[in-house]
């Protein structure tokens, strides 16, 4: 049996990596993916905690996270694609204007 | 422990050999069946010591040819992904079969051996997941070739597979609702029940619409005619234009394996899986009262034989479709997926729910 702290530690590491990725990368797509990574880390923690309590609530929560993430990705990608279509470049540093 | 491992290993090996060999054989079947349909003779020249055996050596010759051909990689290709893509394709096609049961439980010296490579209580979802991962092989191949035509082919393939999988998933839900399980084994078992005492409760009878939708979407996900716009071997140029030799062969292999998987899934979900009508664990038990006792081993063999027969017939049927129907245009295929199969699947779910509600034993 694996201690859940291991899962939590892994979750922490992945979350950190995700956050760092958001900060250091300029490509909005990569930033987006890093966010997904962080979300995943959180999910992992949720499931681990749910395991600990023996209730499926944690898993249900993860399920919702996934659904929301899917919606977020769909909208976010659509926005990025729309921006790219106009700008032909991808860098968050240049996306300081509200309209394009 | 060792025995368990051995048995598990044996199950996996059996399934793998079955799927792989069937896939290899399909190259021969495809040629030969099409030839016979078209009043031709078909491949029959490859011979070993003058023995031709109806062209059965052609798959072998093909393999030798592909292995010895130059393995060409374009200069602008992504070296890593270019090499990985065919393996990804074949891998996911191959593992998808793992949770499809090919028989009931076999009782050998006190052990219960489930005739299934992997027992999984979300078997349906597993197969579904594996099929959806197969998209990666295609997209990687298209992108890593460094060829715009290949990229476009990859995009077409991915879009087609996704739209097909949505329909597959939605159409399966009806089956899941009827049999109340995500486990393919229990779905298969449930299909052994008799409706009104004499009709086997096969999926094709309980979910006829789902059967048609699943079959259509399944063919689409294999990217074969009439949904071969991604490949369009001779004219459109598909995602594997830049591949040669065995890597090319692996993509073709993946297609055949997917065909086998779709046939297996159709069998498991809609054709009663390994069920033989009126055959129960003790033997035949006909609705009019007659019985025929059979030893368990014979029953198991009959079940496995039944499963294999059904798969082969399904493959034949899929081949028949492949050599009969003309190709859909890309936009037609997409339209069919999103505006035809998907809404109908949803309608099927609603309908099934209503029927289930109405017929639920109070």
């Amino acid at each position, binding site marked *: 049996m694996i201690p859940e702290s291991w899962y939590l530690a892994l979750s922490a590491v992945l*979350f950190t990596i995700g956050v760092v990725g958001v900060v250091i990368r300029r490509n909005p797509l990569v930033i987006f993916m890093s966010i997904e990574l962080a979300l995943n880390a959180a999910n*992992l923690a949720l*499931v681990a905690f749910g395991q*600990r309590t023996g209730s499926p609530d944690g*898993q249900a929560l993860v399920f919702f996270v996934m659904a929301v993430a*899917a919606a977020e990705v769909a909208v976010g990608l659509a926005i990025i694609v729309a921006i790219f279509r106009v700008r032909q470049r991808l860098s968050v540093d240049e996306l300081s204007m509200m309209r394009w | 422990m060792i025995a368990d491992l051995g048995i598990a290993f044996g199950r996996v090996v059996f399934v793998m050999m079955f799927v792989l060999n069937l896939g290899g054989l399909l190259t021969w079947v495809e040629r030969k069946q099409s030839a016979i349909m078209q009043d031709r003779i078909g491949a029959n020249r490859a011979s070993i010591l003058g023995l031709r055996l109806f062209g059965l050596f052609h798959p072998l010759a093909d393999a030798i040819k592909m292995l010895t051909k130059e393995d060409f990689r374009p200069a602008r290709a992504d070296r890593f992904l270019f090499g990985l893509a065919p393996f990804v394709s074949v891998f996911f096609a191959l593992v998808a079969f793992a949770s499809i049961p090919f028989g009931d439980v076999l009782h050998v010296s006190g052990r219960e051996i489930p005739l299934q490579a992997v027992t999984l209580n*979300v078997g349906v979802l597993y197969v579904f997941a594996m099929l959806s991962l197969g998209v990666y092989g295609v997209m990687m191949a298209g992108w890593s070739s460094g060829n715009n035509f290949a990229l476009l082919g990859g995009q077409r393939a991915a879009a087609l597979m996704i739209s097909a999988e949505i329909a597959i998933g939605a159409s399966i839900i009806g089956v899941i609702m009827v049999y109340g399980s995500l486990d393919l084994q229990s779905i298969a078992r449930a299909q052994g029940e008799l409706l009104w005492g004499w009709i086997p409760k096969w999926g094709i009878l309980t979910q006829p619409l789902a059967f048609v939708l699943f079959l259509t979407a399944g063919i689409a996900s294999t990217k074969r005619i009439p949904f071969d716009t991604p490949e369009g071997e001779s004219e459109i140029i598909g995602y594997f234009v830049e591949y040669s030799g065995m890597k090319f062969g692996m993509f073709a292999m993946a297609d055949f394996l997917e065909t086998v998987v779709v046939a297996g899934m159709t069998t498991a979900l809609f054709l009663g899986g390994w069920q033989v009508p009126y055959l129960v664990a003790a033997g035949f038990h006909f609705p009019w009262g007659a019985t025929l006792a059979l030893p368990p081993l014979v029953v198991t063999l009959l079940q496995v034989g039944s499963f294999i027969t059904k798969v082969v017939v399904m493959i034949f049927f899929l081949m028949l479709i492949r050599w009969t129907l003309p190709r859909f245009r890309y936009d037609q295929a997409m339209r069919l997926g*999103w*505006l035809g199969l998907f809404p109908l699947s949803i309608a099927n779910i609603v309908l099934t729910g209503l029927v289930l509600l109405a017929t639920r034993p109070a």
Partner: protein
Amino acid sequence: MMARAAFLVIAGIAVAAALALVLRRNTVHGALFLVVNLGCVAALYLMLGAIFLAAAQIIVYAGAIMVLFVFAIMVLIPGKEETGPDPRRTWRLLAAPLGGALLLELILLVVGRTAAPAPTGAAPSDNVAAIGRLLFTDYLLPFELTSVLLLAAMVGVLLLARSREGSAEPQGAGPEASVRGSAKPQGSEPEASLR
């Protein structure tokens, strides 16, 4: 023991894949590494007994979301990676110590709670049914809200992806819509031929 070894291996792959995502310049590779990472997490779900989640993780995350990502990246001309001078390089480099600090804090947090009570029991064997029951009873409202959210997202995506000049062009919904949005809108011939 075997389970721990398996965990360590899977966790190692997951961390490596995550690092590769963040550090590699090639976006396509990054996305594929994220898929690997997601697969590893799904495997961990399996180890945690969350079979349904594992399947959902693969189907939803790996099979749908990441396909969307890869699709988008490939369509967006993969040659356009982060190139050129980085005016905020120093600021970005600050992320490393910050990240380290965050990690430290989280680890401390976790380690501080190790004394927490041991697991109360094994995971339910058929957790699919349990989750399903939970979703449609206790979490019915969030569940429905989620579906509304998804619908809203779908509508929003359609709006974003529709071409500006095309006014009432019927378009297929779903992921492929966002891709095809960059291409020319579908003509009306296929419809005509279908009638």
